[in-house]
Structure formats: C-alpha cells, structure tokens
C-alpha cells in the first residue's frame, strides 16, 4: 500500500486580529502562529494507520514555505516515510484548482494506491483541492470521509453528510479521499520518531523541477481573479457586559434570573 498525504501549513487565526495588507490582496501574517491544518492532521494519522495495518509507505506532499518543514518533520516523526515540499511564488494559490494542478504535477510519475487530503483548509476553506486533484489525475474520489476500510483493490469510505448522516460508498483504487476531522485520534510524535524524522528524505522542488510551466498554474492560467480582501463589519446587537470577571458573572446571573431565562 502506497499512500500520499497532502498537508497544508495554516495560520491559527482563532484569537488573532487579522489585518489586510495595503496591497488589498494579502493579510499581514507576521504575528500568526502556523501549524498543520486541522483536517490534515487527521489525514496524517489515517495514512499512518493504513500503513500499520496493511504495510507499505506514506509520502508527504505539501506546497508551502521553508518554515513549514517543522510540520513536515512532525508528520515524518509520526510515521510518514519521506516528503516533498513544493515552493514557488508563481503558483496562483488563491485558486484551489491551480493548487490541485501543482499537486497532481508533483505526483505525475509516481505510483500510489491512496491519496489523503484534508476535506477543508482552515484559512481559505475551499473544500475543493482533493476532488480537483482526483480529476487531474483521472482517478476516483470520495470527499468528507470519516471512516476508511481498505479492502482488496477497493476502499470503503464513510462520507459524513449534514446532520451526521453517513453515506457509505465503495470505490476502486487508486483513489483520493478527503478526510474530515474526528475520523481518528491523532497521536503525539514519539521522541524516537522525532529523532528519526530528521534523517528522512525531504525534497524541495519548484515548478521547473516538476516540469510544470508557470503559465499553466499561475494567475494567467487561473480562471478566477482575487480582486480584494476586506474585514467584514461584525454586526453585533449584543449587550456587552463590562467589569471584572466576577462582576460580569454577577451581572449576567442577575440578567438571566430576572429575565426568567433560568
């Protein structure tokens, strides 16, 4: 079993103030802390579980900056065998179809049975890259997968639909599965794994190395244009309760009690 897992290095903006740069097209990410995309963390775990169950190898594939190698090494510490990192400014990364085309280009001459991606990137959240990748490679796919059973030449995938309903499908390998969070319990990297990961193969390539012409994956090739970014106004009709934490709690408690809410 040969599995490829595609992972993305994303900023944690849950408690960060986000500012748009003067170019209007990028955000100031200098103060963000970055890590593996949540769903991709589950995808890494699933790829290692498949390897432990069926044998074989796992390759990591990521398009991202040098700093993301910390994340890539961590995936290797958990059991992935080698990695390719693509770095090239000429990729139109606002368009998931261009990102998928580069990923497909990086897998061109490779053999594999399964490809895992996350179902959703937390930063730009297209939920599109994995399915587009399957189309570029001309192979099967299933998205939003919350359970994987590898069978002989096939895979059974449980797709999570709205409301928690599961749709079970069976597809022929090779296939792309886009992994949903909660599918497994991602492990912590063992100390020994962290040491071994430093010695594992990590290739850094650009579009030229992949034999991709920038005009095929750059902004000329993309059929959509990122016009501008802006901070939406948060319309809040909420009553903000002020004071020290204790006072806030006290005020809230009396609002709830007086209002007959509790």
């Amino acid at each position, binding site marked *: 079993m040969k599995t490829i897992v595609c992972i993305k290095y994303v900023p944690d903006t849950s408690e960060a103030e986000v500012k748009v740069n003067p170019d209007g097209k990028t955000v100031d990410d200098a103060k963000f802390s970055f890590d593996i995309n949540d769903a991709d963390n589950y995808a890494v775990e699933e790829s290692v579980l498949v390897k432990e169950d069926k044998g074989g190898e796992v390759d990591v594939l990521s398009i991202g900056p040098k700093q993301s190698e910390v994340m890539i090494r961590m995936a290797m510490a958990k059991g992935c065998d080698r990695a390719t990192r693509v770095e090239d400014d000429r990729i139109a990364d606002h368009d998931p179809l261009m990102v998928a085309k580069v990923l497909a280009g990086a897998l061109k001459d490779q053999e594999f049975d399964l490809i895992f991606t996350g179902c959703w990137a937390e930063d730009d959240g297209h939920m599109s890259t994995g399915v587009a990748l399957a189309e570029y490679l001309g192979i099967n796919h299933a*998205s939003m997968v919350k359970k994987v059973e590898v069978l002989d030449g096939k895979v059974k995938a449980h797709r999570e639909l709205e409301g928690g309903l*599961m749709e079970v499908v069976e597809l022929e390998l090779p296939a792309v599965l886009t992994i949903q969070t909660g599918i497994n319990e991602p492990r912590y990297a063992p100390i020994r794994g962290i040491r071994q990961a430093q010695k594992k193969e990590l290739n850094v390539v650009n579009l030229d190395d992949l034999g991709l012409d920038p005009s095929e994956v750059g902004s000329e090739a993309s059929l959509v244009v990122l016009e501008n970014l802006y901070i939406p106004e*948060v*319309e809040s009709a909420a009553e903000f309760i002020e004071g020290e*934490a*204790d006072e*806030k709690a006290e005020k809230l408690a009396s609002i709830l009690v007086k209002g007959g809410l509790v």
Partner: protein
Amino acid sequence: MGDVLVLAEHRQGSLRDISFEMMAIAPRIAEAMNGEVKVLLMGSGMDDMAKKMSEYGAKVIVVDDPLFENFNAEKYQKALSALLDDLKPAVFMTGQTAQGVDFMPALAVEKKLPYVAEAIDLNFEDGTLKATRNLYSGKVNAIVSFKPADTCLVTIRESAVEAPEPAASGDVEKIDSPLTEDIPYRKFVEYIEAEVGDVDITQSDILVSVGRGLKEDKNLPVIEELAKAMKADISGSRAATDAGWIPHDRQVGTSGKTVKPKLYLALGISGAFQHLAGMKGAKTIVAVNRDPEAPIFSVADYAIVDDIFKVVPALTEKMKELKG
C-alpha cells in the same frame, strides 16, 4: 442572454433548505444578466419536489432516472457535463454541501470553467460576475471575479442567505437522462443514521455549550458544575466533540444537531458558520470568549469578553446563590 441554472439538492425524498436559499440569489443574477432562472432536479420520482421548486417562479427541468436515485459524484459529473453543453447557462450554481463539494471541483476541472467555492453572495457588475467569500474563519472577506467563460460555476454556502417566500408558479419540463449506462467505479452502499445518545439536545431548554477554549478534558468539571447549577444540558462545538470531550451526538452545527433552546451559553466557541447555523435559532444567546473579534458575538444577545475559567466558576456560584 445569461441564464442561471440552479441544481436543487434533495436527500432521502426531501428537498434540502439550500435549494430554496439559492432562490434568493439566482433570480437577481439572472435579471442582471438578462436571462432566466432554471432549476434542475436530478433523481427518481420527484413530482412533489418539482412542484415545490416551480413555486419560486422558475422553470424546473426534471431528469428522472433511477440511476440518480442516490447521489453519486461520478454520475452527476457525467450528466452535468452533458447538460451544461446543452443548456449553456451563464451561471451554474449548487450548494457548498457534502453533495456539492463532491463533484463541482471535478466538473470545473473537466470543463475548464471558472469555479468559486462557497460564495456567501454573488453580484453581476460591469459585465463581470463577482463572488464574495469568507476566509480565516469569517474574519476576512474576499471578492473573487470570474474571467469571461461560457459558464461560471459556483457553490453557495448553506444558511448564508434566507430563503425567499414562494412567489409565482413556473413550468415543469421533463427531459431525457443524459446517462445511458451505469458508471461502475463508485458504488453507493448504504446510509447510516447518526448515533443517538442519552440526551437529545434538540429538546433541551437550556444548553451550556463548550468549544476548544476548554483546552483539555480535565477542565470539564468546571462546565459540568455550571450546567448542574443551571439545570442545563451540555453540548459542544465540533472541536469539542472531535477531541472526545463531549459525546458526538451532542455536537451543535451543520454536521451535528440544530438546536433551538430558550437559552444557549457558548463558552470558548469562536462561532464558525457551521456552528452558528446550528444554534442561531436559540431564543437567547450568551457568549463568553476572550477574543473580542470572535464571530460568535454577531449572534449573541449578551456578550462577555473574558476568560471562561474566570467567568464560569463565578457564574456557577452566583447561580447557586440566586437559585438556592
């Protein structure tokens, strides 16, 4: 002429809400493009659904074929590829749903057409179609325009807009299925219903709901004490259920439950749209979050910007005092 073709979504015999929500956007775009709205229904035995969709004044096109009885990405892609060639709509839209995301990106790649995922709004200005979408969990919006093409493909976020009231009646037309044979690569096996737990949170009067702000499960007693003092049930965001702190059947949101309690307390929950969609119908919403920019505050009635580990124990004490 620029028609807007809307693929309506249905599952297990019922239309899904997104099908109606898209009717808040499609007619406006069709009008701006001097075209009309057409609604496409693919499936088997859909007379009632066709009638319902026709009440939005659009022409409904029905492809009735047992091959579409259950959704299948490959079959949908093949059929839609042929239908786009025939119908030549200027815009083709469907929902950013488990169904939509499973075929739209592949269709866009196959047809070499521009595609924007998860638009929350669409506008046609100066001859250009533009989509608005969210980035960074709702903290930034992006305007993305489509380069000129025969058809622009777009998926619309669920619950981004409210469905309009039905207005006029339109025609229903049945057309031949573009599929002549089954596609064998992917097989539908079965549906498995979501698990049922000990408490049905859709019936709870008061929910104390916790998110990733809880940090670790050993902090759960802080929340349990408050729930006990308020006679509330505990629920959680997906982050809390994925982490195993809260049982899966108590997840609030699009992939969990839709709840409408009298009181909903969101503690350390950022308010991702998938979460908001499941709880914004609560009568009174209280949010405690230390990030003043957290989107949860956009739906809250009462807001506290602070640390849950400072506010919650104090609130528990006060509740005990006041409620005796």
